[in-house]
């Protein structure tokens, strides 16, 4: 492989993802769910809009998950498929989706970790299916962007940097 492959998703994929996440939030009584790509890019946010910078949050989430992945390997585990960070009022639950994306759930005292984990399991299974279908659609790997998508981009970069 020359470099990292790109991936892209359509509006219908996006809608499906949002529907699964909305149903999960309702069932788990959690506040907010974010999907973050393993490289730190925010894919989707559903539920109460977060009060923090979601881009920074996404990059830290990916780093957190990757660091824990390595820790798992060091103690002889294949991976930690999910992580929990518990605070006094606010807590986070993180779970792997299709080895490419991380589901982050923010929840408070209105629910319990047990319920979030339980409902999270079902949501992850559904999301796994969506992402695997998405990746399989054009062969084994992630989709390639439309040809010529960024034609003329160079001029715009020139403009930005003067």
């Amino acid at each position, binding site marked *: 492989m020359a470099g990292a492959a790109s991936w892209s998703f359509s509006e219908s994929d996006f809608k499906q993802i949002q529907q699964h996440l909305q149903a999960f939030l309702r069932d788990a009584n959690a506040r907010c769910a974010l999907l973050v790509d393993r*490289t730190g890019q925010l894919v989707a946010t559903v539920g109460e809009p977060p009060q923090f910078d979601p881009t920074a949050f996404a990059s830290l989430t990916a780093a957190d998950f990757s660091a824990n992945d390595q820790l798992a390997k060091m103690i002889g585990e294949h991976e930690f498929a999910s992580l929990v960070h518990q605070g006094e009022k606010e807590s986070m639950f993180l779970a792997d989706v299709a080895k490419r994306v991380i589901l982050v759930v923010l929840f408070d005292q209105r629910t319990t970790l047990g319920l979030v984990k339980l409902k999270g399991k079902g949501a992850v299974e559904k999301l796994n299916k969506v992402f695997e279908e998405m990746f399989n659609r054009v062969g084994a790997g992630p989709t390639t962007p439309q040809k010529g998508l960024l034609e003329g981009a160079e001029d715009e970069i020139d403009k930005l940097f003067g």
Partner: protein
Amino acid sequence: MSMINYASREINCKLVYYGPGLGGKTTNLEHIYGKVSPNTRGKMISLATETERTLFFDFLPVDLGTIRGFKTRFHLYTVPGQVYYNASRKLILKGVDGIVFVADSQIERMEANVESMQNLYDNMSEYGYDLTKIPFAIQYNKRDLPNAAPVRDLQASLNPGWPIEDGAQQKVTPDPTRPGENLVERVDNQWVGRAPYLEAVAIRGDGVFDTLKTVSKMVLKTLS
């Protein structure tokens, strides 16, 4: 790994600033952070030690503007340069779209530069990425210092070139930023490719945006 979201019409790309410790990677990001309008950049996150040495990474998202109806956003990361942080350094390379190698021009740091470059090649190949095939630029930083090595020596050590075997690429390709110099050329009957290089004094901001522009362009070209 650039991510294209057709629903929100966004393109996100990841750039990593690599190089030896104290070479100026964080300084590059700090300068960009200070100069770019707050409307077009996000918050800068630094996971650093108490003595301001990068522990895990620095992160800065920058919007390049809308291109073909897509909001184009670059996520800039630095890695910790110190040798013993290799595990975390490698994590940051995951899914990278473009790399800037920030070399320290000081003669005394030549060995550290070479070691870091070798480490970059090794970490990239462990992910199955080929550094000669992805957007990659070298920045020779600290050009203002009296003990800065000549660029020719730095080039010989850090950017000697790689053989070009693909016939389609075997054509003289001028370096757009350096008249009279080529990125691909024939040397002693062998086609050789080199990474574009830039001179910089990151602490003053010299060369910082030229470097970002060079590598961003290369990344967007791979998408076009």
